[in-house]
């Protein structure tokens, strides 16, 4: 089986995997980072979102062979004390319900704010159009993104 070296949250992990293994399963099963979640497998729900070279990437839609030397960031790489402004906003506004989709939502929020520090509601609608939260936390997610934007201002 071929070997791949993934740069995840600043650490290199060498794993053996089938070339078409989605990054999602490579992260969860091979690297052992389970913060990134499986939701649909077709890029329709956003639960598996990671940041690849600064951009949101549905990790179920990219094979390990295509990752190359890209830098991958996952929820597991955010501060363990929850001190990132996006985490802070999420905590403050009590966003999660079941919490399962939130890793993807948070990574999308981090990527959005890094490229657009002051997103409008329309920007948020666009960036989160394909993110499903089955618990319906959307209004609090929106509020939290605005709150995090203020902090980073």
């Amino acid at each position: 089986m071929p070997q791949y070296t993934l740069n995840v949250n600043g650490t290199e992990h060498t794993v053996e995997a089938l070339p078409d293994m989605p990054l999602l399963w490579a992260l969860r099963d091979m690297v052992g980072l389970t913060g990134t979640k499986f939701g649909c497998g077709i890029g329709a729900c956003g639960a598996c979102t990671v940041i690849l070279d600064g951009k949101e990437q549905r990790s179920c839609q990219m094979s390990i062979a295509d990752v190359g030397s890209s830098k991958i960031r996952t929820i597991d790489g955010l501060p363990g004390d929850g001190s990132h402004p996006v985490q802070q906003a999420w905590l403050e506004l009590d966003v999660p319900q079941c919490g399962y989709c939130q890793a993807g939502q948070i990574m999308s929020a981090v990527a959005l704010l890094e490229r657009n520090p002051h997103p409008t509601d329309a920007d948020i609608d666009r960036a989160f159009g394909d993110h499903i939260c089955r618990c319906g936390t959307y209004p609090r997610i929106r509020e939290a993104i605005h709150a995090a934007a203020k902090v980073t201002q």
Partner: protein
Amino acid sequence: MIAEAEVTRRSFLKLAGGAGAVFVLGSFTSIACAGSHSEAAPFEPNAFVSIDRDGTVSITICKSDMGQGVRTSFAMMAADEMDADWSKVKAVNATGNDRLYGGQMTGGSSSTTGSGYKYRQLGAAARVMLIGAAAQKWGVDPSTCTTSNGQVLHAASGRSADYGSLTAEAAAQPIPSGQIALKDPSQFKIIGKPTNRVDNLLVVTGKAQYGIDVRLDGMLIAVIARPPALGQFAQSFDDTEVRKIDGVTEVLKCGVGVAVVAKNTWAAIKGREALKVTWSPNPSVGQSTNSFSSQLHAAAIANPEPPAGARVIEATYEMPYLAHVTMEPLNAVADVRADRATVWVGAQGPDGVRKATASQLGLPEDAVTVNLMLLGGGFGRRAINDFTADAVNLSKGLGAPVKVIWTREDDVRHDFYRPMNIQVLQGALDTTGTPVAWSHQFIQTDPGRDGGGDFQGRRISYNIPDAVMRHAAVRTPVQIGQWRSVEFGMENFGVECFIDELAHAAGADPYEFRLKLANDTCKRVLQAVAEHGGWGQKLPAGSGRGIALFQGYSGACAHVIEVKVVGKKIKVTKAVAVVDCGLCINPKTVEAQIMGATSDGIAIALTAGIHHKDGVVVESNFDDFVWTAMNTIPKVEVIILPGGPNPGGMGELGVPSVAPAIANAVFAATGQRARKLPIVLDGMV
């Protein structure tokens, strides 16, 4: 560690040996508490409340948290009564064990109403014992001591003691007998205060552990090929191509399907794609949404004879099957050994999983441990244990720990759906436009039931004489289950759309019409929602405002919802909800539940439905079973009215009023009645 075996029936408190002194308080018969053991039942020690020497208070949560926040609200209830320091309170999941924890099935919005009182009593009992311990230590009368924020205080001498320093003495205190005085609501410091959920930090750091995140040494992953059509089963399979995939270890029959077992999830998924299964002939040809609909309509009987001279209005509504689509796809991990088994699962009834697993394996219940994980959504789906049995079966057969994972397609196509149903309503108005009769036929699909009864008297939330209801079922092969708000979520759609139709027929304002017929509880909720929802204010052309009410789960909720219709596209632009949930434990949770319920209702009204063609589910994933998204959910304003002394259930209360409020808003915007869900403006009558 708590030495459970040493705890006797007389001593419900246990001090653990060694350095970590722990005060442990269980559920006991000397305190009259809901769900306490009967004298005849075997006693097993449990630990609902424990305090570590460092002051950490652990509250064992006997129900499953699927996002409804029960881990937080139960902890709040116990912590408030014991005057604990909230920053030192931890929620711990109970394992599946109804002998220790009482029935654990989490559903019917019954956790807080059924067990909340118990948590308050346990907290209050712990407080009495902590005071007793401090008073003894200080040689003072316990009645001269008070408690605050994790400390016992003696004002006269200025002494104070942290709870963590009193664990040994507290454990030696007698257990308070009889009813323990609970706080008056005016004394609450935690209950009723907006409180963030106890699991938030775990979630935002990716450390929250759901069933799907369990990893064990030597664990295999299984994905199961399930029959495409209802009633089919695997006759044989060809796994030649599957065996070529690196990582696949086994291919074997599993129930009516075939399991592909691998060392990692991707190999299992890929293996299933390469698998060639010969399925038994499809016995469900012709079993399709249209045929189910015809069956349902054919099962309606003549409506009751309306009062002479009254004006009669009739309408029929139809709702499709509905999948649960929990965000975390179903999964379970089992490690079955010769004499014992361990299961890790996010289930709504871990005690039921334990019983089922014991019975499946022929083991005593004591030999089965069910570790309850966080649930990535439940909505009723995780109340059914079908997905655990496969993992247990495979682990036993393969002699290794096995995780069974469902893909989203498995989930959408093999659910226990909310039943498809039609509702036939008839109302009669007298010459003043007042309803004088009401009949409601609710006819649903059911794989195990056919036929129906006659009309029965039925109280509805509106004062209408001669209100009757009839329940009936038609047999279809589609398996059904409970779906958040269960029958109310369906029946209330008929009730609240039809009361709107009666109002229109009577030439009355839908809000005023409801108000005249409503009981006192509902009146208050309706008045508040009309006020906050801007009822009566003008809207631009193409927009409409709808109202709907629901009373149940020891509470009431009403929605005012605005929609904007552009062409055939319906967008919900505003949602206001008013809730009377009795004693509100956590306003943040109540708001979150109503927000989530509103999201559900929007999906139910506008986008989501499961359809069948020749016994095969048409939809398969989130691309065609469309749920909600950021741009389809408006800001949801939630107003919580001051309620009575007892809490109501919040998990489902907000759902039933949403879809009818939307349908009524669509009527206000377009003049077209939306009687079939999801609402499609094209082709509507």
